[in-house]
């Protein structure tokens, strides 16, 4: 049997983090009491009309630009007609004929190789509500919560350009990071503000026609996407290898059992009877508007990572970690701007800063420490006013109080002791009190030096200049 090639396409729905819903003034937030965040418009009462959310259009435009799409000079909404209880009007206001962005692309770095994924289109639409089906199978009802109805969505559809599950993983991470960078969505998959759907098929290598497409639903995390696709890839390969035939299908991913099962066969595409939304006028995207959006685009993560490697000489891994969160990368760059020494700054940010953020479950904007503060601390270290141990102590204080490091050092009297005489006095005292250690040191036992230095630090409350201590020991003990 000819070798099989995996072909995957990904459809993403991102909820935009706007102040209000796509077509009405209801606010957005997750986890409210059912049916409390609604109004006659988003619940489709008789007589209501939609009004397009300008902020949503602006953020959608940002997404289209970030994905290198061709932007429609006139973009329109269309009605997608189908019946379902989570869709109160029984039509969704979406886009079909004049999508906001088409023919875009995203470049990914997959194991050192650049892979370009083409974006078929990016368009705007409104979200539906949520249905809850009771556990018991004899229940003759389902519950409808319309809080989510009308939430602005950006839908991003790729061409079937993925050839491995790993590429999909990188795509999801990259897309998520872009959406966060341009402040279009809060991308919380666990809250449903970022959702992925995957389609996968197999074909013999070299064949032009695609194989039968299998759509996978119920992917609630990136891990699920990867797991489901790997499972599907294996299942389809085995099916085809054993002479079986794959029909176009929709399959449901079971997170617990880690397998997919048929939901329905894709016999014919549903007829959504798309037609232009008569209640909303077309949107003219002027060149001025587009230029403004382009000018306001931040440096995107991939470009920024490259620049961190080139400009600051950071290793790829470090650069990757720093650019993941835009605010973190901003913090890093601001600090480097003040004190230079990118590598040291990067270590402090990646270790000390990030540890605190994780411990306290906060984001960098919540941190009391500013780039100025951190720069100040590193300057004190650099000119040896304090040593590494003290620096960490001062940093802990800065986290608590937001006080400037110079003030803390002053207040607590933490300046490094670099007075040769003072150090010698303490060293001699320690040596006299620990004759065994002296013997071990002379015998070459590594631990002895650490022990003696430790004792000196204890005596000086950590303030002794460690370099000087080591030198002095060498001088005194050989």
């Amino acid at each position, binding site marked *: 049997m000819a070798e099989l090639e995996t072909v995957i396409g990904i459809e993403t729905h991102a909820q935009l983090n706007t102040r209000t819903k796509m077509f009405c003034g209801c606010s957005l937030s997750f986890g409210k009491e059912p049916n409390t965040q609604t109004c006659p418009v988003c619940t489709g009462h008789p*007589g209501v*009309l939609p009004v397009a959310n300008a902020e949503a259009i602006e953020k959608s435009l940002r997404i289209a630009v970030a994905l290198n799409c061709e932007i429609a000079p006139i973009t329109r909404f269309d009605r997608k007609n189908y019946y379902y209880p989570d869709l109160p009007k029984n039509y969704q206001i979406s886009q079909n004929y004049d999508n906001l962005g088409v023919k875009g692309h995203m470049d990914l770095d997959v194991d050192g190789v650049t892979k370009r994924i083409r974006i078929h289109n990016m368009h705007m639409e409104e979200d539906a509500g949520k249905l809850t089906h009771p556990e018991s199978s004899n229940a003759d009802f389902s519950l409808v919560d319309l809080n989510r109805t009308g939430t602005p969505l950006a839908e991003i559809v790729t061409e079937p350009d993925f050839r491995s599950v790993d590429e999909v993983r990188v795509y999801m991470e990259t897309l998520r990071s872009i959406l966060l960078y341009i402040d279009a969505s809060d991308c919380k998959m666990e809250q449903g503000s970022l959702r992925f759907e995957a389609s996968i098929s197999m074909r013999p290598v070299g064949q032009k026609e695609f194989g039968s497409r299998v759509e996978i639903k119920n992917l609630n995390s990136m891990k699920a996407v990867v797991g489901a696709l790997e499972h599907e890839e294996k299942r389809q390969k085995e099916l085809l290898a054993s002479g079986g035939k794959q029909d176009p299908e929709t399959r449901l991913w079971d997170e617990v059992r880690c397998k997919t099962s048929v939901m329905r066969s894709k016999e014919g595409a549903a007829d959504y*009877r798309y*037609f232009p939304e008569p209640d909303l006028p077309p949107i003219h995207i002027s060149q001025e508007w587009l230029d403004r959006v382009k000018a306001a685009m931040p440096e995107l993560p991939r470009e920024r990572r490259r620049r961190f490697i080139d400009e600051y000489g950071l290793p790829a891994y470090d650069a990757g970690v720093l650019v993941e969160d835009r605010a973190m990368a901003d913090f890093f760059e601001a600090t480097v701007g003040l004190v230079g020494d990118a590598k040291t700054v990067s270590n402090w940010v990646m270790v000390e800063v990030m540890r605190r953020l994780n411990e306290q479950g906060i984001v960098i904007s919540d941190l009391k420490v500013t780039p100025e503060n951190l720069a100040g601390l590193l300057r004190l270290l650099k000119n040896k006013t304090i040593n590494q141990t003290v620096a960490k102590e001062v940093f802990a204080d800065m986290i608590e109080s937001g006080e400037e490091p110079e003030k803390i050092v002053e207040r607590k009297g933490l300046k490094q002791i670099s007075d040769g005489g003072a150090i010698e006095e303490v060293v001699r005292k320690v040596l006299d009190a620990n004759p065994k250690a002296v013997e071990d040191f002379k015998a070459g036992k590594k631990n002895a030096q650490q022990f003696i230095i430790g004792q000196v630090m204890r005596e000086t409350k950590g303030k002794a200049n460690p370099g000087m201590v080591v030198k002095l020991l060498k001088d005194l003990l050989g």
Partner: protein
Amino acid sequence: MPDSRLKTARELRDLIADRELSAVEVTGQFLDRIEQVDSRLKAFVTVDPDGALRRAEQIDKQIASGETVGPLAGVPIAVKDNMCTRGLLTTCSSKILKNYVPPYDATVVSRINDAGAVVVGKTNLDEFAMGSSTENSAFETTRNPWDLERVPGGSSGGSAAAVSACEAPLALGSDTGGSIRQPASLCGVTGMKPTYGLVSRYGLVAFASSLDQIGPFARTVEDCALLLSVISGHDPLDSTSADLPTPNYLAHLDEPINPLRIGVPQEYFAEGIDPEVEAAVREAIAVYEKLGAEIVEISLPHTKYAVAVYYVVATAEASSNLARYDGVHYGYRTDRESDLVEMFCRSREEGFGAEVKRRIMLGAYALSSGYYDAYYLKASRVRSIMRADFDEAFKQVDVIACPTSPTAAFRIGEKTADPLQMYLSDIYTISANLAGNPGITLPCGFTRDNLPIGLQLMGTSFDEENLLRVAQMYQKETDFHLREARL
């Protein structure tokens, strides 16, 4: 106490503001009238005496304490039952909404309330505004005050009959293919469809989104101008409402237009028109000629496609607009359901009348895959061509004059056997909806059987001020609009 019934809204408002009459007295008189005649007329679906008198009392109090009150203060008004009134049943004359009480007011309702008007009740219509006779109402067929065995026209039959029978001096209706103008013509009152976009549609239960407009019914052009001034103007809740401030159509109403060129479209006087109707309309046009107007023969060459285009575009939009009536969130839900799809289907099967179902099916078909280009898209393109017809015509003339309806009121049941026959009743009104232009109908005569005949005037988009002035010229010369039906 002077009889309020024959006074115009403007007169009533001034009498109430001057405290010569109280709003409560006036409202009481109209409520009495409704009680007296409506069991025979069936113009109202819901009458709200308590709400009306409470509002009237409020107005009287405000006037007594010297507060300024609005231009409709104390004037009773009837509202077609497809416009949402908070807390008051809004049924669209359909079984599927027979228990629907809206949680909000339509914008036009807010505006008339703010202007001090007293809503006396909700009037009957063809179900979901689909029809030309009010026979499609799921409840009752409203009668024509001029002959109770005849239809009042539709779909705003209830509003037209209410004003005609003096149950209220003003009424609001909606016009998608002629649903204000045709019943106004058949009932001998003045009715107007504004330019598409002049009046907010927020709160008007949608039939065809790109065609629907709300407009006034009254006994005089002046009262129409008064009511139109209150309800017009930009509404941020309706993205299709024109970005224009609320105008004052009374300011120059009595100033005649001179010179005036009136276009008479040859296509509107071809076959199908009743000879008595034609005669009355031509006489009306002659009145303008006597006033110095130049009468110009014009052509609106694509008129013959109007009904076909309308029944593709309107039904397509309706099939989508009416999808929400599914028994899930509000309105009628069947009790014979076994699963979701069955619940949807049975609720709609049982809740909708035959004409509504007919149009939904037509519309869904026109939008379906494989047919969208041939029907909906094609119809939209023809619509643009028809708009161009009007633009061309208005280069040569200021106003277009023609019949409103090819016949006077027909008998109940006369046209129900053949829906297509019924559709043709709208032949003279539909083009204005497709093109977006405003149109007004004025009583211009009576048939041998004493049935009203209407003259229609159509104007350029957003030029209601001049259209009303031209209309006013006619009502100053004639008194057809002052005649009263004997009930």
